[in-house]
């Protein structure tokens, strides 16, 4: 335990004293964010138009619609028939179609009897990000209604004000991506480079001559890097907030949880690279070879949906895609941790597999 604290402390001291690395690992993401934010940030906001087909035309359905309309991020277009609405959806005029079927009011009045009432929502699969944002907004409103109907405590009700201010621009999209990129770079590339060079210089070998255990060493590395990454992510988020007013809509805990998950997963991959690389000189190119495509494909700068179809299956396997998606959904839309279970699971899967491989391939020399 003493060794663990001492090593963690030593690693943090090394981070802090390595002024240049400290500066550039922070300066680069902030620089990127500021440049891209000012050049691309203002235009190209996401607007969501919802087509509504109200077949019920009851007071209840009107209430639902009025609640939805409070949300300034959404604009509405009433459509008479479902077919009409769907064809507009296909042409891209609408992003989402919400159908309120006949009998909606009656079902609502039965108050939770039987299975919950399902409202059909149609969306454009080729434009996932926008339609997901839209769906989330619609869901929130519907949540509000259903909770009111079943007499939930009001404290659980999602505040519509939070949703009202949602006007997403590129910078909102970018900031979570930058945080994901930072986690990727600092951990995968950082660990690979550092461990490989420590090994080359015999630093690890000297420690192997002591009673220190490998797992203590690795645990201390992880702790120190988690602290450092957490702080760096905070600084970037702080700058984003002050300069561009980018806020976190979801829970901070959820953001922190994904920062931790991402850090662990990429660090484990970094340990593998350090194990494979024969020299520190080869560690950097290997890490670069892996991180470069991830940055472009994994939704850091460009939406994943803009990537070619044939790459989609690969992209869906990349840890960075899930980290950037999870951070984005939490920060931009305020999606809860529970509904990002898939992302968390895949990252955890990467983490576990990578750690198993890393602990097998880890060498002191």
């Amino acid at each position, binding site marked *: 335990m*003493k060794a663990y604290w*001492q090593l963690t402390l*030593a690693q943090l*001291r090394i981070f802090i004293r*390595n002024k240049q690395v400290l500066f550039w690992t922070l300066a680069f993401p902030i620089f990127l964010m500021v440049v891209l934010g000012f050049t691309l940030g203002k235009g190209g906001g996401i607007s969501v138009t919802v087509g509504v087909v109200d077949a019920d035309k009851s007071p209840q359905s009107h209430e639902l619609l009025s609640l939805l309309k409070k949300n300034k991020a959404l604009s509405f277009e009433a459509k008479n028939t479902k077919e009409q609405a769907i064809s507009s959806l296909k042409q891209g005029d609408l992003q989402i179609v919400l159908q309120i079927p006949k009998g909606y009011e009656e079902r609502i009045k039965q108050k939770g009897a039987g299975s919950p009432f399902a409202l059909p929502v149609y969306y454009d699969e080729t434009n996932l990000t926008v339609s997901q944002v839209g769906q989330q907004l619609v869901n929130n409103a519907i949540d509000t209604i259903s909770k009111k109907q079943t007499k939930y405590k009001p404290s659980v009700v999602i505040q519509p004000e939070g949703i009202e201010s949602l006007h997403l621009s590129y910078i909102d999209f970018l900031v979570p991506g930058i945080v994901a990129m930072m986690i990727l770079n600092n951990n995968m590339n950082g660990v690979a480079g550092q461990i490989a060079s420590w090994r080359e210089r*015999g*630093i690890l070998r000297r420690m192997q*001559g002591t009673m220190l255990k490998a797992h203590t060493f690795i645990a201390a590395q992880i702790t120190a890097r988690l602290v450092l990454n957490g702080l760096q992510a905070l600084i970037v988020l702080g700058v984003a907030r002050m300069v561009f007013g980018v806020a976190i809509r979801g829970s901070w805990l959820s953001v922190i949880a994904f920062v931790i998950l991402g850090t662990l997963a990429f660090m484990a991959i970094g340990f593998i690279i350090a194990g494979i690389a024969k020299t520190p000189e080869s560690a950097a190119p290997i890490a670069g070879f892996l991180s470069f495509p991830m940055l472009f494909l994994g939704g850091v700068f460009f939406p994943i949906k803009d990537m070619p179809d044939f790459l989609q299956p690969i992209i869906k396997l990349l840890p960075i895609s899930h980290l950037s998606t999870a951070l984005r959904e939490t920060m931009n839309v305020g999606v809860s941790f529970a509904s990002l279970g898939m992302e968390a699971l895949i990252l955890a899967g990467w983490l576990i597999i990578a750690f198993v491989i890393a602990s097998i391939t880890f060498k002191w020399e």
Partner: protein
Amino acid sequence: MKQAESMITVDSLVKRYGNFTAVNGVTFQVQKGEVFGLLGPNGAGKTTTLEMLVGLRKPEEGTAFIGSFNIRKELQKVKEVIGVQLQSTTLFELLTVEEILQMYGSFYPKHLPIAELIDDMILTEKRKSRIKSLSGGQKQRLAIALALVHDPWVIFLDEPTTGLDPQARRTLWDIVLKLKKRGKTIVLTTHYMDEAHVLCDRIAIMDRGELIALDTPETLVRNLHAASAISFSVSSEVDLNEWAKVEGVTKADCKEKEVVLYSDDLQLTLTSLIQTASERQIALEDLQTRTATLEDVFIHMTGRSLREE
């Protein structure tokens, strides 16, 4: 069987790298409280032997005991009682002397008071300096301090004085002798004969992975059967046998144009040498005589000088 007093027992250790045998069946014992020197030319297998004893390389054959602990089976216990300074190590350069000692101390169940250790190693003024800024000698003393931090029984030093100026070497000698006085067992490798002579109780000479001699420095020199050495160089190569025929010569060595003759009767040999040289019209250059040393023992046994240029 191990002797009661022996602190290190090495039993036919073998280390191979592919087809190459770096250490070929080395056997020796080191007594408690002894300073034991491993000498040998570059690539003789000194570092390899030492690193097998401290658990950093796995021997292919043979085994060794430190105290009663088997280096193959009880490595963790071995590590608790040994301290190592490796031939090539760097440390975390951004930490200070005090911090790194504190850190290494934490790797063991108990450690010496850090401040005292720093004073002992004459690093008091550098306590708060970063390792990056230390001189070669200071770094070396720090490396030894790290080896001592948990107060081990046995200390392994791999070329502790290589690359240091004479002053710094002497400082290190004092440290080693002080450790010996405290009853520590020390195994060290060196390329310096004077150092081996001053520090070591016994010396093992290694060459090409094998132990070729093991004794006290005095006995090794005595066994050379030559009190004096006569060295000179010649302008063209002469057959070694010619030199052996010179009167009084017990041994003759030559490496290209450098010749060393050993003799118990310096005057006789010198007279005979001059005669031979003028008869055959050989010009002797840089003619020198001196008392034979460990260096001569070494050159004679290995046919190589310790530090090959």
